[in-house]
């Protein structure tokens, strides 16, 4: 016997068979009708609908046979599906293909077989409709045709059955979908309700806006906080409505620096960070409809659709007035307590120091030990108070950084020098790798404090004979310091904790290592105030590396208090080839009301002199295309520039003999500032250069003669001339006669009157004179408004100490007159 070969399309045929869903399906009377009909037409005892599966034939319907399936190898039908017409075997005994077939030899003892293939519309023969007899015979032509016709009907029925099934399934699918969508829409609705409840019930103002800023929704808390109704702002106003324009300008400047590209003040100021995928959380003063403002903590987040397309922004803001007040109270408390603590500590520390030093006679060894313990602990208490005060100042934003140009190498050397004794005691070796000529701007003392802190920590946690390495390198626009130790290292989860207050890895460390637990928190605060960041990398067991990175061009402080706003301020040309330094000077001058332009070379300076026509020149002597002294010569020969005051900024002390101004027609070489200089020093010198009329004059208006004299004596030490006026009438006369640089008023009740006098004076002469008011009453908002544009400071008598008052006077005067000690010869 020989098994039938596989049809060429066997794979597709089997797929079609599976798809039909007939295999192993439940009995179906329709199929039985076909087989009964076939047996009747062909007059055979057996008729089957046989489906040829991969390794068997399975009978969907059968007449005269009781098996469900037989192996495919034995199947007559496996042969029949190879044909498209009827396959007939009249006598199996006479056919070599089937003579020894088990189905021939044994039950059902097939002698005769005729099978019509069941061919689908795609052309696959799924099986056969076949008739079988136990004796040899043949079929009439009509019977053959009928068998074929019946086979076609079987296929048609199979197809029909399949489509009905599909339809059923589709219907069921549809029903399921409908149900799901009903459930979903209920869920969506309840989610929307929830959102609405959160939106309106929240204590945060929630304002959503379109990508360009138009407000799209405005919740109840926002209405409550800001005083607008949703209907007044939705669809018409922009988010910028609630923000202080001045604050926006400041923030835009910071952001431009931070992101390295210009950010316009306005909506972009809020959205720039969020647009870049960073939620922007910060404190703002929000402005109410009535013009009053309050501090708020606000977060701006970008909204995106599923495709990642920007659809708008949402601002979440929280009124933090109360928090601010509490903070303020806490800060004042800390500051007062710390100061009060220092006074008794000075006595304790002093008394112990004298005893320990043996000044008052010898002590027993035990007494000496006890005194030493007391002295060491009072030292620790002092350190702790210093640290708390420091941190408090930084956190309250009261620590003003004095930015100067610094050299990383010099800074590193100073830090190492200061800590060397400690390293020697601990037997730890200090190494440094700091390249030359790496400049940065920052507060020297504060950065030194950070380096000292980190070095001292590194030494503290290094074993004897360990090594601590200090490195500095430029990384892009930043300067990166790193301090590596050979200590036990720091597990990852503890690294960020370290920068919190009073955090040490092991609480017992505080006592064992003698630290205050504030050093790293202070370092972090200082680094962040320099707009830098600090972090730790460590492999436990192999030491830790503390990094901090600062922008090499630190941002300048805001305009100092008391600075005169001068939109049409004097023009200053800054001739300086060091781009970093030039930028800082320009920014400094701009921040205090000058209109400043830069020139990097002699050639550029000549051009700017003609076009920009400065009122004063800041001149660096070492320029790439020659000496600044040449420019000074040229200026002196040109009548147009001969009168312009020049302030020389040089790395060396003054080299010229006598002031240049002594020669007729010479540009006035008015001052000589030695680098590195502090910005305030420069501004002071520049102001003096521009004033050109001698010492600053301060008009004291007070009916208390003793007060005037006391203040006058104090001002005299600053080289300032005091003019006296006991009342507003004589003050007005004095204004016109002497044109003072600053007016101090000690009679607040005369404030409004004096402001009127100052306003008249300004209209007549164009001179805006700053006014410092001290007394027990604040100026009214109306008075302040009238005082614009001259600047005004108000020091209520009850709120400040005498020292604070004198400091404010000094600060204002310092801007008028250079401090005598710090200038060149």
């Amino acid at each position, binding site marked *: 016997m020989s098994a039938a070969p596989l049809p060429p399309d066997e794979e597709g045929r089997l797929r079609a068979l599976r798809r039909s869903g007939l295999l192993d399906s439940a009995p179906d009377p329709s199929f039985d009708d076909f087989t009964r009909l076939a047996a009747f037409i062909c007059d055979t005892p057996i008729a089957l609908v046989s489906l040829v599966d991969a390794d068997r034939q399975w009978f969907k319907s059968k007449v005269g046979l009781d098996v469900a399936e037989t192996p495919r190898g034995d199947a007559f039908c496996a042969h029949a599906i190879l044909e498209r017409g009827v396959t007939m075997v009249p006598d199996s005994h006479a056919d070599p293909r089937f003579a020894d077939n088990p189905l021939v030899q044994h039950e059902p003892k097939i002698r005769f077989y005729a099978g019509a293939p069941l061919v689908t519309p795609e052309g696959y023969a799924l099986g056969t409709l076949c008739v079988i007899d136990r004796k040899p015979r043949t079929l009439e032509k009509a019977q053959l045709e009928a068998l074929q016709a019946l086979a076609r009907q079987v296929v048609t029925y199979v197809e029909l059955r399949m489509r009905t099934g599909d339809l059923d399934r589709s219907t069921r699918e549809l029903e399921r979908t409908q149900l799901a969508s009903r459930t979903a829409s209920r869920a969506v609705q309840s989610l929307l309700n929830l959102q609405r409840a959160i939106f309106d019930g929240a204590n945060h103002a929630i304002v959503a806006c379109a990508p360009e800023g138009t407000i799209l929704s405005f919740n109840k808390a926002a209405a409550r906080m800001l005083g607008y109704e949703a209907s007044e702002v939705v669809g018409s106003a922009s988010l910028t409505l609630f923000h202080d324009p001045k604050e926006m300008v400041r923030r835009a400047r910071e952001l431009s620096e931070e992101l390295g590209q210009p950010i316009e003040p306005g909506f972009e100021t809020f959205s720039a960070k969020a647009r870049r995928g960073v939620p922007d959380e910060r404190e703002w003063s929000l402005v109410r409809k009535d013009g009053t403002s309050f501090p708020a903590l606000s977060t701006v987040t970008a909204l995106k659709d599923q495709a990642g397309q920007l659809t708008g922004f949402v601002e979440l803001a929280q009124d933090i007035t109360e928090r601010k007040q509490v903070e303020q109270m806490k800060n004042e408390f800390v500051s007062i307590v710390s100061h009060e603590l220092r006074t008794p500590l000075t006595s304790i520390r002093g008394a112990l120091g*004298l005893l320990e030093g043996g*000044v008052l006679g010898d002590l027993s060894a035990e007494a000496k030990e006890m005194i030493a313990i007391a002295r060491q602990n009072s030292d620790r208490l002092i350190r702790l108070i210093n640290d708390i005060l420091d941190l408090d100042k930084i956190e309250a934003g009261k620590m003003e950084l*004095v930015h100067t140009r610094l050299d990383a190498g010099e800074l590193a050397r100073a830090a190492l020098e200061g800590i060397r004794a400690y390293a020697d005691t601990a037997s730890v070796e200090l190494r440094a790798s700091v390249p030359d000529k790496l400049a940065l701007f920052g507060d020297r003392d504060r950065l030194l404090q950070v380096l000292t802190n980190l070095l001292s920590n590194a030494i503290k946690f290094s074993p004897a004979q360990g090594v601590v390495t200090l490195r500095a390198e430029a990384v892009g626009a930043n300067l990166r310091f790193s301090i590596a130790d050979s200590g036990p290292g720091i597990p990852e989860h503890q690294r960020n904790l370290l920068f919190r207050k009073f955090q040490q890895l092991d609480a017992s460390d505080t006592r064992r290592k003698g630290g205050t637990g504030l050093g790293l928190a202070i370092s972090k605060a200082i680094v962040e105030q320099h707009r830098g960041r600090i972090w730790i990398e460590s492999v436990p067991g192999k030491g830790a590396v503390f990094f901090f990175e600062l922008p090499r061009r630190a941002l300048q402080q805001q305009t100092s208090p008391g600075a005169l706003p001068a939109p049409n301020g004097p023009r200053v040309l800054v001739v300086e080839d060091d781009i970093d330094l030039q930028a800082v000077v320009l920014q400094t001058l701009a921040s205090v009301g000058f209109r400043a332009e830069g020139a990097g070379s002699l050639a550029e300076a000549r051009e700017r002199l003609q076009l920009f026509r400065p009122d004063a020149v800041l001149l660096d002597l070492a320029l790439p295309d020659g000496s600044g002294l040449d420019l000074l010569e040229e200026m002196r020969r040109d009548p147009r520039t001969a009168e312009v005051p020049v302030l020389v900024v040089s790395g060396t002390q003054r080299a010229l003999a006598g002031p240049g101004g002594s020669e007729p027609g010479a540009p006035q070489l008015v001052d000589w500032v030695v680098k590195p200089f502090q910005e305030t020093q420069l501004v002071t010198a520049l102001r003096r250069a521009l004033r050109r009329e001698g010492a600053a004059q301060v008009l004291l208006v007070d009916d208390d003669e003793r007060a005037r004299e006391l203040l006058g*004596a*104090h001002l*005299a030490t600053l080289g300032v001339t005091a003019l006296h006026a006991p009342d507003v009438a004589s003050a007005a006369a004095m204004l016109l006669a002497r044109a003072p640089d600053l007016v101090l008023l000690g009679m607040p009740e005369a404030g409004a009157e004096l402001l009127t006098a100052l306003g008249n004076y300004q209209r007549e002469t164009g001179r805006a004179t700053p006014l410092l008011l001290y007394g027990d009453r604040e100026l009214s908002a109306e008075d302040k408004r009238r005082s614009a544009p001259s600047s005004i400071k108000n020091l209520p008598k009850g709120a400040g100490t005498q*020292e604070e008052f004198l400091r404010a006077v000094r600060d204002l005067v310092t801007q008028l007159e250079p401090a005598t000690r*710090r200038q060149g010869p």
Partner: protein
Amino acid sequence: MLLERVLLVDDEPDIRRIGQVSLQAVGRLKVWLASSGAEALELARAEKPDAILLDVMMPEMDGPACLAQLKASPETKDIPVLFMTAKVQTQEVERYLSMGAVGVIRKPFDPMTLAQDIRSLLDADEQRRAR
């Protein structure tokens, strides 16, 4: 410069006493004590000390006001003045210097080195002037 006679001005009696012991016993100096700015002005005029150690925070006349008065009088304007302060900010120190003080001693001070610290500050100032 030769430092032999010092006027110590502080409103806290304990600190005056400790300063006195320190300057006398350790520093071998002659010490006058004043408990207020007014008293300080009087003693400065009368005794012409080599240096004045002046507390910043005092009631009525504080350190800077006292300094201004000292500088305003031809009799006392050349006496070097050092401030004593519990404040630690660099800016504050800078400001005191700009008022005409020659140095700042921070509180709490070390009584074993106080006289030496004063001498160092006076020397540094003298060198600055010489330049």
